[in-house]
């Protein structure tokens, strides 16, 4: 009886061994490892996500707004020149169309501007720093007469050799004036824009407006 049992046990151990060895055999082909590839190996990632023209314009507008809000005045230097007084020179290159500086001052209505104009005309030494512009069919004025330390107000006039142009931009609900590069500007060049004032009265007082 006992012999039979040992016999049985012997067999059972043997058979369990057998299965384990069979499992090993079955696992053998798994040595050939299959790895999953990634889709990016087949399809290229589009680096430039295409944007519509509108989106590009909106982004540019936003960029300009940021520059204005942060009062950026990079790459500018105020120098004294013979005959013209103070002028602004570029200390870095400006690409065509890029933001140069804001013409910042008090944003006032035409009515208020007339009152101030009267006031300023009493004093001969006051320069002309009033910039009139139309926005939404209404005339407004940026008055930069006050010495603010801002560069925009110090840029000289040139009718024929201007390298900047002005643009009106609505920032946080108020129209603002920015000066943009009309052409590629090299460092060292003086920044100039056309004041646009052609009235006889102004020309009489400021003959340099003609050039």
């Amino acid at each position, binding site marked *: 009886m006992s012999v039979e049992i040992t016999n049985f046990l012997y067999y059972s151990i043997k058979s369990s061994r057998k299965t384990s060895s069979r499992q090993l055999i079955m696992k053998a082909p798994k040595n050939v490892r299959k790895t999953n590839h*990634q889709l990016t190996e087949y399809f290229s990632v*589009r680096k430039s996500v295409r944007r519509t023209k509108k989106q590009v314009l909106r982004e540019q507008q936003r960029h300009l707004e940021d520059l204005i809000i942060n009062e950026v005045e990079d790459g500018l230097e105020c120098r004294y020149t013979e005959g013209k007084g103070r002028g602004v020179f570029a200390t870095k290159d400006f690409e065509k169309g890029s933001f140069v500086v804001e013409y910042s001052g008090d944003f006032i209505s035409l009515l208020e501007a007339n009152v101030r104009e009267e006031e300023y005309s009493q004093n001969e030494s006051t320069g002309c720093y009033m910039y009139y512009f139309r926005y939404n069919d209404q005339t407004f004025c940026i008055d930069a007469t006050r010495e603010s330390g801002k560069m925009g107000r110090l840029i000289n006039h040139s009718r024929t050799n201007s390298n900047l142009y002005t643009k009106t931009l609505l920032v946080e609900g108020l129209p603002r004036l920015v000066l943009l590069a009309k052409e590629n500007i090299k460092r060292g060049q003086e920044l100039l824009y056309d004041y646009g004032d052609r009235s006889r009265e102004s020309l009489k007082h400021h003959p340099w407006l003609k050039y």
Partner: protein
Amino acid sequence: MFEARLVNSATFKKILDAIKDLLDQASFDCSESGIQLQAMDNSHVSLVSLNLKSDGFDKYRCDRSLTMGMNLASLSKVFRCSGSDDTVTIKAQDDADTVTFMFESKKQEKISDYEMKLMNLDQEHLGIPETEFSCIIKMPSAEFARIVRDLSQFGESIVISCTKEGVKFSTQGDIGTGNVKLAQTNNFDKEEESVIIDMQEPVSLTFACQYLNLFTKATPLSNQVTLSMCDNVPLVVEYQIPDLGHLCYYLAPKIEEDEN
């Protein structure tokens, strides 16, 4: 302003169910032509590409192209609140940071709306080249789901082999092997029940079950599924959404690593 109205909100729910297990979040790109979504799963092994035509909607208005990044789990929660017969209207302002879903019951006696926050997702778009596939298999979607489910019990991957005679799905695992062969249907009485194979040359590719199983979540969208295969190119599993567009899944194959 963006507004899209779909009388059958259940369709959108089905689409969502078909992608939400694969993707955590995704951007819906809305334009005049419709809504598109393209996103890879986290492991970058599979890709979902959804295209819904504007004509397929009952009302569609998109003044400006906009991208709405959404958390799909949150979106599922919103759609869980809709009834099966409800009409859904999706609305967003230009440059908005929220999107509104309005559900109207059939008789208009109940109107609910949910506003969901949008996310700014920085997602990579993949350029998918036009491919001449070696084999294009059209088969009942339920059959495909069944085969994938059955075989994934046995192994981690499924080999799909396509010849002129038919298509064979096979798997191999610790307990053994499994094979399912489908012959091309000769009788074309019922197109949605037939297996149609368009083959240029035989092809055999291996894919991970895990992903195939997730793709079959799209089964309720369509009676038929199309599998397009080509050597060394991801598998394309396509479900047509009747009158609205299509949902495509791309899956990179498993490739034997060179032992040397």
